[in-house]
C-alpha cells in the first residue's frame, strides 16, 4: 500500500537513490532540494512522512523542523544527517523529529525505519490492544505472553524487545532501531550485544515449537512473523 513521502535532500545522487528505492516499495516520493520549498510543501499536510536532510540550502533542517512543528504539522519526520555524534543525534530528536538516521546508512535500515514511522502514523498501536502474531499472543496491559496458549516467562527488557518487534510484525527491524527504541541508547556499542539479547528471546519463544517466529534478516536485522 503506497504512501506519500516528501524527501527534502540537496544531494541529487542520494535523493534519486532513495526515490527509486522507496518507489519500488510502492511509495510515492516527492523530492525538493531547498529548505524553504521543503517547508512550504511539508505544511500543506498531504504527506504521510517527511525525510529531511539536516543540512539543506535555503533553510537549516532543524529550523525547518521547528517551523513545521510550530505550524502544528504533526507529520512524522525522519532526519538524515552526516552528523553522527550522540550529541547531534539527541539534538535532532529533541528538535521534534521522530527518528534520526546517520549517513552513510544502508537502504534496508532506512526502509525499516520508514515503515515503522508510517505504521505509527496509522494509529494502530494503542497500548491496550492485544497483539497477535500467528500463534503468539501478547497482552500489553498485563505483559502476559503466550504461544499456543502456553505462557512464556520474559524479563522486562525481553518483553519490550518482543513488543516492539510485534508492533512491527512482518517488517524488518534493525539492530540500531532496537538499541535506540528498546534501550534508548544512541551510540554504537560495537559489540553483538543486540544479537545476544535477540537470540535469548528467540530461545524462549521457539523452544518446544516447530515453527520459527523470530527471523534474522541477513545484513539488516530481525523480523517477527508467523511465516518466513
Amino acid at each position, binding site marked *: 500500500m503506497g504512501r506519500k513521502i516528501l524527501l527534502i535532500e540537496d544531494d541529487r545522487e542520494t535523493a534519486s537513490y532513495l526515490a527509486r528505492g522507496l518507489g519500488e516499495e510502492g511509495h510515492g516520493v516527492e523530492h525538493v532540494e531547498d529548505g524553504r520549498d521543503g517547508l512550504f510543501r511539508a505544511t500543506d499536510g498531504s504527506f504521510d512522512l517527511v525525510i529531511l536532510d539536516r543540512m539543506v540550502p535555503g533553510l537549516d533542517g532543524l529550523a525547518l523542523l521547528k517551523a513545521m512543528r510550530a505550524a502544528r504539522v504533526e507529520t512524522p519526520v525522519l532526519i538524515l544527517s552526516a552528523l553522527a555524534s550522540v550529541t547531534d543525534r539527541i539534538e535532532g530528536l529533541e528538535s521534534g523529529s521522530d527518528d534520526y538516521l546517520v549517513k552513510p546508512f544502508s537502504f534496508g535500515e532506512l526502509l525499516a525505519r520508514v515503515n515503522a514511522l508510517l505504521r505509527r502514523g496509522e494509529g494502530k498501536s494503542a497500548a491496550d490492544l492485544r497483539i497477535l502474531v500467528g500463534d503468539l499472543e501478547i497482552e500489553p496491559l498485563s505483559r502476559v505472553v503466550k504461544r499456543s496458549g502456553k505462557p512464556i516467562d520474559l524479563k522486562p527488557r525481553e518483553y519490550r524487545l518482543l513488543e516492539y518487534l510485534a508492533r512491527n510484525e512482518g517488517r524488518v527491524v534493525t539492530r540500531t532501531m532496537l538499541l535506540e527504541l528498546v534501550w534508548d541508547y544512541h551510540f554504537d556499542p*560495537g559489540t553483538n550485544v543486540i544479537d545476544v539479547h535477540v537470540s535469548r528471546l528467540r530461545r524462549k519463544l521457539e523452544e518446544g515449537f516447530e515453527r520459527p517466529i523470530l527471523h534474522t534478516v541477513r545484513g539488516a536485522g530481525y523480523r517477527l512473523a508467523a511465516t518466513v
Partner: protein
Amino acid sequence: MRLPTTLRIGLLAALLAFLSSAALIGFIHWRTYDDSVAAVHEQVAEASSALDDVYSSGGRRALDKAISDTLGSGDPQLLAAVLAPDGAARIGNVGAVVEPPLPLRPGYRVGRIQFRGAATTTSVAYLLRRLDDGEWLLTGRSLGERIRFQRILESSLGLALAISVLLGLICGLVVARYVGSRVGAMADVADSIAGGDLAQRVPLSGSRDAFDGLARQINRMLDRIAALMEELRLLTDSLAHDLRSPVGRLRARVEAALAATDDSKRDSLLGGILQEADSLMRMLTTVLEIGRSEAMASRNQFEPLDPAGLIDELAEMYEPIAEEAGCTLNVEAESGLPIFTGHRQLLAQTLSNLFDNALNYARSGGTVILFARVKDGRMRLGVADRGPGIAPADRAEAKRRFGRLDSSRSTGGAGLGLALAEAVAHLHGGALELLDNGPGLRAVLVLPLDGVSLP
C-alpha cells in the same frame, strides 16, 4: 608606532608633574603673598589708629610730637606724615604721594611715594586718614624688602616648576622606554608566533615584577598551545595512520570481491567489506565524539541521573555478553546514591566501552565489576577487572587518542575508548582514574556530585 607611545607617556608624565607642581607653587605663593600683605596692612592700620588716638586726645601738637617720636625710633621702612589737604607735605618723612595720583582719598592702598629729600620713589603700603581741619594723616611702610623677598620666592618657585616639568619629562621617557622595551619584547614574540614560530618564548628579566608575571603567563599559555598543537598533530598523524590499514583492507576485499567468480564467496567478501566500513564509521564517530566532549558542546543535554539505575541498565544489557564470554558480571552500587547531573548517553557509552575493554582482558572465568559509589564527595562510576592491568608508566599513553599499548589489537575502536572516557569525564568537570586492581585494572570516572554549572 612604539616611539610616539614612549613620547606620549613622557609628555603625559611631564604634564602631570607640571600640574601638580603648579598647584603646589600656586598654593605657596598665595599663602606667602597674602600673609605678608596682611601683616603690612595690620601694622599700618595699628600705627595709624595709635596716631589718631594721640591726635584726638592731644591735638595737632601732640600728633606732631608722636610722629617725630615714631620716626625717631630708627625704622627706615616706616612712613608717618601729615599732609596738607592738597597733598603737600607738612611734617613727617613723606615728600610727595606719587601713586595713586592726587586728589588724596582716605583708606588703605599700595602705591608709590617719594621720601622727603629722596630723588626716587619707593613702593609702599599706606593708610590715609582725614584730620579735623582737612589735613591728612599718612602712615605706611615701605614694601621694598618684602617685594624683593617675594620676587626671590616667585623666581625660585618658577625655577622649581621648570625643573619639575623637566624631571617629569625625563622620568616619563625613562619609564616609557622601560615599559616599551618590556612590552616590545612580548610584542616581538607575539609577532613571530603569529608568523608561525611557536617555539618563541617571552624572555624573563628575573626581577619577579608584574611584567615577569605577565611573561610567565604568556609563556604558560604558549606551552599549552604548543602541547595542544602537538597533540593535534599526533592525532591527525595517527588518524591518517589508523585509517590507512582499514581502508587498505577494504580495498583488498573489494578487489577480491570483484575477482570472485563464486556467488557465495563474493557475498561473504561483501559482508566483510560492510563490517570493515562500519568499523571505520565507528572510529570516525568516536573521534568526533571526543572532540565534541572536549569542546564542552553537549552540556545542555545534561539531565538528572540515578547512578544505580545507570549501572543496572548497563549490567542488564551486558550480562548476557559476559555470560557468553564465560565471565561473571557483578554490580556494586550502594543503595541510596545521590542523583547527579550528567549526560546519560555519553556516560553509558563510556561505561560500555570500559566494560568492553575489561571483558577483552578478563580471562574466561574471570569477574568484571560495574560499580557506582560516592567517596570524598565525588561520584565514582567505573569498571574493574582482574586482567593484566596497565602499568603505572603506561597509563598516560593509554588515555591518549590512538595511544596503543598492545599493538596486536586491531579492532576499529581500539585506542579510543580510554580517550573518550577521559573526554567525557572532563565534560562533567571530573577526571578518569586508571588504578591498580591488584591484579587488573580499575577504570573510574570521578565526577563532581554537585554537577557542573549548566549553561
